[in-house]
């Protein structure tokens, strides 16, 4: 007699749909609380930077958004690989649900980067490796979404867009390592796993709290979008009639 949880149960859209509905509000609440703490740390508690003045406060949004833009792409590409390899419906639906939020964080990273660049470097934009590869990331998200929308049959759309997402995944390490590989206007990383952070503890804390807020926000929004996608794609399934209300 086995009492272990059958994790494959949640690979079925019929089981995932109510689970996502129960979890999403909690992630949304966690995101709101963390964002409030992060904003307070970043805008009120953290002192003015000696070199950059208050312009540096943009990094409390810019860095988490840039991390999320890459992280969400990796997660999306992962689900695309699962969808291709195991022909898993739910994996493809999750990838589909991740793309708009990934594109949104990429746009935020580019926008806040431009507004940080102007007072700090004297220019909103430069065609350096970091910024150009981040712009390519935005176009990869758009391309993935556009390709999906262009194909009527969802299963064919899953396969074609998954191949695109996986090929485009090569861009993520290029973004991440661009500041090391090329001589870029964009500075090197202030935070890395291999060395002590080159910033004050309070600034680092604020940035990490905002990063967790962005994570939980993304999870909440993606779960809700995944539910809509499940309803749209499983409309003919018998279980839908009981849960849709």
């Amino acid at each position, binding site marked *: 007699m086995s009492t272990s949880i059958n994790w494959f149960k949640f690979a079925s859209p019929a089981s995932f749909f109510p689970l996502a509905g129960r979890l999403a509000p909690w992630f949304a609440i966690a995101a709101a609380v963390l964002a409030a703490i992060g904003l307070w740390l970043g805008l009120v508690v953290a002192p003015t930077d000696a070199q950059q*003045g208050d312009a540096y406060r943009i990094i409390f*949004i810019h860095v988490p958004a840039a991390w999320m833009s890459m992280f969400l792409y990796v997660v999306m590409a992962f689900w695309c690989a699962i969808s291709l390899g195991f022909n898993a419906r739910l994996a493809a639906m999750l990838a589909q649900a991740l793309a*708009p939020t990934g594109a949104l964080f990429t746009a935020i990273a580019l926008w806040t980067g431009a*507004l940080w660049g*102007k007072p700090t470097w004297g220019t909103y934009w430069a065609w350096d490796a970091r910024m150009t590869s981040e712009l390519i990331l935005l176009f990869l998200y758009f391309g993935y979404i556009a390709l999906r929308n262009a194909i009527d049959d969802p299963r064919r759309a899953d396969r074609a867009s998954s191949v695109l997402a996986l090929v485009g995944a090569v861009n993520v390490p290029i973004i991440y390592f661009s500041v090391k590989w090329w001589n870029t206007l964009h500075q090197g990383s202030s935070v890395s796993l291999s060395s002590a952070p080159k910033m004050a503890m309070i600034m680092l804390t604020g940035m990490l709290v905002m990063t967790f807020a962005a994570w939980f926000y993304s999870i909440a929004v993606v779960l*809700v979008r995944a539910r809509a*996608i499940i*309803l*749209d794609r499983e409309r003919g399934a018998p279980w839908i009639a009981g849960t*849709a209300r």
Partner: protein
Amino acid sequence: MTNVSDFLAMGGYGFYVWGSYLVTALLLAVEIVAVRQRLAASRKAAAEAGRAR
């Protein structure tokens, strides 16, 4: 930071700092509203499809 106008001025970088924070807040708000509307629309369509059967 002593008062509200100092806080809003952000040491002369107010345009850049608030331009970043407000646009981000706006974009996230738009996504939240859009995704909720999308779920509501999908629920409605699924319910109608269920009745039609």
